[in-house]
């Protein structure tokens, strides 16, 4: 059950090229599960930006001095996210959440590989804690184009059995991409499941690798969203259902976590001709 609340900025701190915002978010932090997200309004009535921005829930604390608090990691990109990184202590923010389908958690003690690209590692913190509490083995693989864009290396090290870091420019860890190391890590850790969060191209490549190895994979996708709550139909992507039929599925309510083998990665951005309700060829 999502909440719509006014939260207060408690702290805004830099982390590499990202900013971590700590917010009070009564109700939301208590209910949040790994892989869910919140949406934040950019400014009040005076703002020209109407659309909320979605952020993966990075960490929550349900009984701090401030009541429930949560953290999000913001990459300063366009006007909206930059506005957020300029918030100061005591600024008020309108927050809706927790939203979306959380990651599925295995009911058995299995071996899990968590892959994060860029700020995509933010939601992996809660997930790693959760999996460890359930007795799962957790190996982490994170990558970015350059060191500054890695998020949370030190903290993730504490939460995992092993951590592998890649950067494309070699400024930290191994030179290359996470996908260069994934197969090896799956084999080394005898992974039963892969969780991934990052850019769509990375998720697509990961799903290809894990499909070959028949390792169950959950990806957290990032499609542009207008509402974040399931009413507008902007955030769709082609997903194969249990019945084998491809549908244009809302990633805000039926995602953002999705089975990697169910998303038709190569067809994202199109309406596949065999999708349910696709127009006949003209």
């Amino acid at each position: 059950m999502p909440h719509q609340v006014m939260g207060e900025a408690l702290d805004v701190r830099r982390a590499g090229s990202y900013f971590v915002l700590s917010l009070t978010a009564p109700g939301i932090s208590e209910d949040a599960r790994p892989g869910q997200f919140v949406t934040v309004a950019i400014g009040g009535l005076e703002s020209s930006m109407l659309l909320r921005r979605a952020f993966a829930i990075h960490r929550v604390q349900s009984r701090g001095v401030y009541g429930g608090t949560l953290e999000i990691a913001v990459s300063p990109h366009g006007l909206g996210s930059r506005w957020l990184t300029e918030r100061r202590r005591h600024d008020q923010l309108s927050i809706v959440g927790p939203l979306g389908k959380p990651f599925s958690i295995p009911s058995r003690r299995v071996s899990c590989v968590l892959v994060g690209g860029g700020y995509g590692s933010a939601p992996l913190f809660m997930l790693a804690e959760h999996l460890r509490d359930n007795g799962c083995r957790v190996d982490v693989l994170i990558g970015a184009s350059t060191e500054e864009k890695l998020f949370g290396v030190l903290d993730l090290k504490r939460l995992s059995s092993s951590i592998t870091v890649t950067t494309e420019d070699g400024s930290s860890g191994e030179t290359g991409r996470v996908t260069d190391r994934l197969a090896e890590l799956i084999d080394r850790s005898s992974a039963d499941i892969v969780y991934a969060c990052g850019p769509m191209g990375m998720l697509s490549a990961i799903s290809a690798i894990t499909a070959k190895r028949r390792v169950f994979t959950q990806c957290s996708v990032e499609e542009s969203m207008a509402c974040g709550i399931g009413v507008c139909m902007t955030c769709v992507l082609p997903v194969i259902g249990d019945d084998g039929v491809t549908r244009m599925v809302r990633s805000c309510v039926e995602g953002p976590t999705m089975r990697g083998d169910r998303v038709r990665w190569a067809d994202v951005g199109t309406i596949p001709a065999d999708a349910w309700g696709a127009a006949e060829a003209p």
Partner: protein
Amino acid sequence: MTRAIIGYGGTDRGPVGARADMTTDLAGIELPSPILTASGCAASGKELDAYFDITAIGGVITKSIMLKPRAGRATPRMAETPSGMLNSIGLQGPGIEAFIEEDLAWLESRGARTIVSIAGETVDEYGKLAQKLRNVGGFEALEVNISCPNVDDRGLVFACNPDSAAAVIQAVRRNSDGRTPIFAKLSPDVTSIVEIAESVVRAGAAGVTLINTLLGMVIDTGTMRPALAGLTGGLSGPAIRPVAVRCIFQVRQAFPSLPIIGAGGVRTGNDALEFLLAGASAVSVGTSIFNDPSAPMRIHDELARLVAERGFARVSDIVGHAHRERDAIVTEAQADPVESPEGAPASDPDDELSAWDFVRE
């Protein structure tokens, strides 16, 4: 700016103020509030029911439904614009059968008032939709979204041609029960909105919904291509509010007793009030829901106070009030206790005063 989710009839937390009677007559349907959700911005109400009591507002205008299931347009389907957004959803939806079985059934069981929006690609399709709905009932009114390309007319939008617009409304009227009011939803992208309104009214529409989105486009300066997969999209949000107010005012002026559902950028109770003053009997809230999922309820609440503050007991009494005759003109100078400036000193610029030797430093 704390947004409380206040149920209808719930406790006020602000300074205690009177609230107007919000009961609204819309072409013969009685609604507890003039505030509705706009088609395509609330799906079928289910998701929003988590943020406020969906039965406490006037009603839900459902996402335009077509005869068959429809996958819609490719993504990206939206782009944010200054105080607005573009969308090109392409009417993704489950088709009328599934809509009736699932969405309409849910709305009925929930006790919400429903206005069903329909859309088609041919005149015939609209007629078939009306027929199917006539057989099931369970809704208050039909809204006919005629901002769709007409496949029989080189893809020209029905709403942009008075004859095509009229043909659709006639088909719907012939296939519905004759009691359920039909609202024609018009596009502002026309040379004369009054001309189109006239033609749909002649064709049997009980009222009109003003306005659908404006045709717009955004180019992504990174890829240097149109931002939307569908190239153009519909512009909505507060950016277009002045266009909506103008359309409502013009149509009200031409047809003073025609029921109008206003739409276009309503974000606050004050905006809704503006629409009512211009001549809308009801107001639908669209894009603002994306900013504030409880917007319809908040707007209802704000409006109830604003109407009462202006000394109106019933929200219906304020509809079209901006069209009233000019009051006798009393300038502030005349209203002032001080005597009015007789002897017109103003017309005497050459008197001794101007001889004064003022020097600007």
